[in-house]
C-alpha cells in the first residue's frame, strides 16, 4: 500500500482548506446569506498568514490569517447588513478588492519579483498511538495541528446545529427571519456573528494554504477555493457531514492529479488543473434540487428597522 498512503495524505491535505472555508460558508448560508467574497477572505487570510508568519512565526501567522479573513467579513457585513446592499455584487466586489489589495501590498512589500520566501511553517504532529495505525495512521494522524481542528469542527457543527438553542436560532433565521424575530431572536446580531465566523474560517483556510502547505505566498493563490467551497455547501446539502464529505471528494479529486501523474498517465497537465472546476460543475448539476436550501437563502434583506 505504498501508493495509497501518499494519496490519502494528499487528499486530507487538500481537503482541509476547502472544509474550513465551506464550514464558514455553511454557517452563513444557514442564516440565509451567501458570500461570494469568501474567495477574497481566503486570499486575504493567505496574505495575512504571510505577514504574520514573517513577523513572528506560525502562531502569529494564523493570527494574521484570521485578521485578513475578518477584515473582508467586516466589509461584507457593513455592506450587506448595514446598507442592505446586494449580496452577490458586494461579495464579487470584495473578492476583487482582496485580489487587488493583496497583489499591491505583496509587490510593494516583498518585491515585484516575489522572491522565494522562507517563512516558518506548521510542522506535522504525529498523534501518539493513532499515527501507528496501518494504512491510514501515517496519512490521517500525522498532520499539522490545523487539520485536527478541522476533524473536530465537523461533528461539533453537526451537534451545534441540531442540539443547541443557538444552532436552532441560526437555522430559524435562514428559514423565516420574520418568525425568528417574532420569537425574540436578535436576527441581525446573529447574522453579524455568522458573517464574522465566515471570515474567521475563510481566513484560516487561506492560512493553511500558506502555513501548512505552500510555505510561501503567491498572488491569487486561493485559485478559486472560496468559490469551490460555496459549491461544496450546495453539494453537501447544507449539512455539516455532507459538507465534510464534499470537501473530501474535492480533496481526493485534486490528489488524483498527483496519482495520475505518478502513474505516468499521458495527458496534457492542463486537464488535471481543470479537474476541480469541471468536477464542481458536474457536482452542482447533480446535487442541486436534491437537498432543500434554507428557504430565505440569497433573498434580499428587508430594510433595517
Amino acid at each position, binding site marked *: 500500500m505504498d501508493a495509497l498512503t501518499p494519496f490519502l495524505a494528499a487528499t486530507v491535505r487538500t481537503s482541509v482548506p476547502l472544509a474550513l472555508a465551506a464550514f464558514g460558508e455553511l454557517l452563513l448560508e444557514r442564516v440565509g446569506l451567501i458570500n461570494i467574497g469568501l474567495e477574497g477572505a481566503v486570499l486575504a487570510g493567505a496574505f495575512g498568514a504571510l505577514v504574520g508568519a514573517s513577523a513572528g512565526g506560525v502562531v502569529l501567522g494564523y493570527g494574521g490569517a484570521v485578521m485578513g479573513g475578518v477584515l473582508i467579513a467586516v466589509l461584507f457585513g457593513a455592506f450587506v447588513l448595514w446598507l442592505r446592499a446586494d449580496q452577490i455584487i458586494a461579495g464579487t466586489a470584495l473578492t476583487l478588492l482582496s485580489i487587488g489589495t493583496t497583489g*499591491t501590498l505583496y509587490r*510593494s512589500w516583498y518585491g515585484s519579483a516575489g522572491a522565494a520566501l522562507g517563512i516558518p511553517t506548521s510542522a506535522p504532529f504525529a498523534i501518539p498511538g493513532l499515527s501507528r495505525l496501518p494504512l491510514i495512521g501515517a496519512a490521517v494522524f500525522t498532520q499539522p495541528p490545523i487539520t485536527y481542528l478541522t476533524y473536530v469542527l465537523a461533528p461539533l457543527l453537526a451537534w451545534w446545529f441540531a442540539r443547541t438553542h443557538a444552532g436552532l436560532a441560526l437555522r430559524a433565521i435562514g428559514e423565516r427571519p420574520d418568525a425568528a424575530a417574532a420569537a425574540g431572536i436578535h436576527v441581525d446580531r446573529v447574522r453579524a456573528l455568522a458573517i464574522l465566523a465566515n471570515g474567521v474560517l475563510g481566513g484560516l483556510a487561506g492560512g493553511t494554504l500558506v502555513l501548512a502547505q505552500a510555505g510561501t505566498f503567491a498572488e491569487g493563490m486561493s485559485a478559486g477555493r472560496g*468559490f469551490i467551497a460555496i459549491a461544496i455547501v450546495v453539494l453537501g446539502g447544507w449539512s455539516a457531514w455532507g459538507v465534510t464529505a464534499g470537501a473530501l471528494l474535492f480533496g481526493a479529486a485534486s490528489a488524483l492529479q498527483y496519482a495520475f501523474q505518478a502513474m505516468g498517465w499521458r495527458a496534457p497537465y492542463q486537464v488535471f488543473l481543470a479537474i476541480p472546476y469541471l468536477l464542481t460543475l458536474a457536482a452542482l448539476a447533480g446535487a442541486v*434540487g436534491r437537498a432543500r436550501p434554507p428557504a430565505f437563502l440569497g433573498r434580499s434583506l428587508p430594510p433595517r428597522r
Partner: protein
Amino acid sequence: MSATPRRRRTRLVLSQIALAALALVAIVAATAFLLLVGGYSVRDGLVALWSGSLGSWYAITSATLVRAVPLLCTGVAVAIAFRAGVFNIGAEGQLLVGAAAATAVSLATPLVAWSGGVTIILALAAAAVAGGLWAGVAAVLRARFGVLEVISTIMLNFVAVHFVSYLVRGPVQEPTHAYPQSATIAESLHLPRLPGAGRLHAGLLLAIAITAVSGWVVRRTAAGFRLMAVGENPDAAASAGQIDVGRTTTRAFLASGALAGLAGGIELLGVTFALYENLSPGYGFTAIAVALLAGLDPWRVLPTAVLFGALEAGAGAMQRDAGIPSTLVTVIEAALILAAVTVQALRLGRRPNPGRASIAAEP
C-alpha cells in the same frame, strides 16, 4: 407613488451626482491609501496615471481607447445579463474562448487575395458563437438544474484559462515551439487602423455600433422590456406579464456570452494578433464595474468603458514610470463597484425586492 414625475427626475439626477461624487472619493481614497501604505510617491503615481491615460493624443487613442474597446463589448454583455437577473461573472472566460475561436478560424482559413474581409467576418462570428456556447453551458445548468450561475461562470473562467494554456502549448502553438503562443495571424486579417489614431483600430466603430443597437433594444423594444421585467421581478413578469421567464433569461445569457466572445475576437484581430495566456488583463472582470457604474444601461456603458480604459492605461503607465503595482487598478475597480452598490442601496432604501432568490434559480 406620491412623488411627481418632476421630483422623481430631480431625485434621479441627484442620485447620479451622488454616485459620481462617491465614485471619485472611492477612487482617490483607495489609491492614496495603497500608495501611502506601499511607500510610493502619490505625486509620481498621479502624474503617471494622467500622462499614461489622457495626457496626450497618443495616450488617448493608442492606450485609453484601445483598452476601452473590449471593455465596451464586455460591459454591454454584463449589463444585458445583469438586467435580466443573470449574474454572468464569466465574461472573462467567454472572451478567452472567443479569442481562441477567432485564432482558429484566422489560422485555418486558406488565404486568397480577396478573402481577408470574409475571413475577418468569419473569425468574429466564430468568436461570438464560441462565447455564446461557453455561456450556454452555464445557461443550461441554470435552466435545467437550477445551478447558481455565479458559481458556474466562475468555474468556466478557470476552465477557459486552462484551455487556452493547453491550446498555446499544443494544437495552435507557433511553429518553432519556443513560446507559449499561437502563430501570428496574416496581416490581411488585421482590423484596419483608424487614420491618425495610432494603434486604435476599426473594432472601436464595431463596439460603438453594438452598444448603440443594444441600448436601443434594451430601451425601446418589447424584448428589452421583457428583459427588465424578468430582472426586476420574475414572478410578476410571469404572472402579470405573460412572459416566459426561462426563455428570456436564457436568451439574455447567450447574448451576453456572444458579446463577450466577440470582444475576444476583436481584441485578437485588432490588438494582439496572436493567442496567448495573458491576452486579457481581466477585461471580463472589469466589465462588471463598467456595467454597474453605468447603471446597467448599454448607452451609458460608453463613458464608463472609456473611464476604465483610461484607468487601465494609466495603471500600466504607473507600473512602468513609477514602479507602482498595476494591481492597484483592481482595487479601484472594487471600490467603484462598492460605491455603485452603496448608491443603489441608498436609492432603493425603503423599497425591498423580495422576489429574487439567487442561490437556486427557478428551473
